């Protein structure tokens, strides 16, 4: 408070203008990210648990329909994109009205559309869309999404870097160490990372 009453030097004014501009821009770009993380975590966990349930409860169905995970993950991915866009749009509308918020929303949407497209295109370019290496595609997709979070975090909210690293660890570590129960561990770990990330962000923005 004392500091706020003191008159600024010209250099401090210049720095305050830059810092405020950056902070306002970043806040606009991460509008709704707490709810998006919670929703995404729940959705991805649901996909993992569905996948795990089919593998354990209906192994015949799983072996007769080897492409079913593609349908499960495709539906979840499409749902996540649609609902996250709505959450982001609604959150942005509550912060600001006008061109700046709209442009920020379009850029965020384009960023994540690029990430999702990369999840399909990178395995396609590597020739993985076939029955031999198809099961490795989720590993690539999770890596791309985790990198998306890390890049977005570097640009606008450093905490999202930790979320990206956490998402990668949630997928790869159980995949290596949990054997047949990997899918269940991956679902639980992803949900935990998203919930912790959302709580962390909410706490940081409240303080």
């Amino acid at each position, binding site marked *: 408070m004392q*500091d*706020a009453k*003191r*008159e*600024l030097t*010209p*250099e*401090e*004014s*210049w720095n*305050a*203008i830059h810092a*405020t*501009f950056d*902070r*306002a*821009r970043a*806040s606009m770009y991460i509008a709704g990210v707490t709810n998006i993380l919670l929703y995404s975590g729940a959705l991805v966990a649901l996909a993992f648990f569905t996948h795990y349930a089919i593998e354990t409860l209906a192994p015949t169905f799983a072996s007769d329909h080897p492409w079913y995970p593609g349908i499960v993950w495709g539906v979840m991915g499409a749902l996540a994109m649609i609902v996250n866009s709505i959450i982001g749009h609604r959150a942005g*509308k*509550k*912060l*600001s*009205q*006008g*061109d*700046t*918020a709209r442009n920020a929303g379009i850029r965020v949407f384009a960023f994540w559309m690029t990430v999702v497209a990369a999840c399909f295109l990178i395995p396609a370019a590597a020739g993985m869309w076939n029955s031999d290496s198809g099961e490795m595609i989720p590993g690539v997709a999770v890596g791309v999404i985790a990198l998306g979070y890390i890049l977005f975090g570097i640009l606008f909210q450093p905490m999202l870097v930790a979320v990206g690293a956490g998402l990668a660890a949630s997928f790869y570590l159980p995949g290596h160490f949990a054997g047949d129960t990997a899918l269940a561990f991956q679902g639980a770990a992803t949900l935990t990372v998203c919930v912790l990330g959302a709580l962390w962000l909410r706490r940081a*923005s409240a303080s």
Partner: protein
Amino acid sequence: MINGQVDLDDTIHQPTRLRIMTMLVAQSPSDRLAYPFIQRTLGLTGGNLTIHLRKLESAGFLTITKEFLDSKPRTWVEATPEGRRAFTDYLSNLLETLNWKPPP
């Protein structure tokens, strides 16, 4: 220019008001920001923000509008053309004080 020093507008040249005006002027003209967004981004208490908004409003640098969005009351803050001009003048004077020269 006063005693070799460039005169900076006192209404804007105050830490909190400078940050409020920066946030508002950084938006496209006719864009408006929600009161809680400004409060959260600048880490201010409601009382502190209101005092500075009133001061800027009485100088004619911004307008405050209250309306309902999704059946909830919302307070919007928007820089006026006069406020944008004052901020631009402030910035020019600040650059002059800092002895900044545009690249050739």
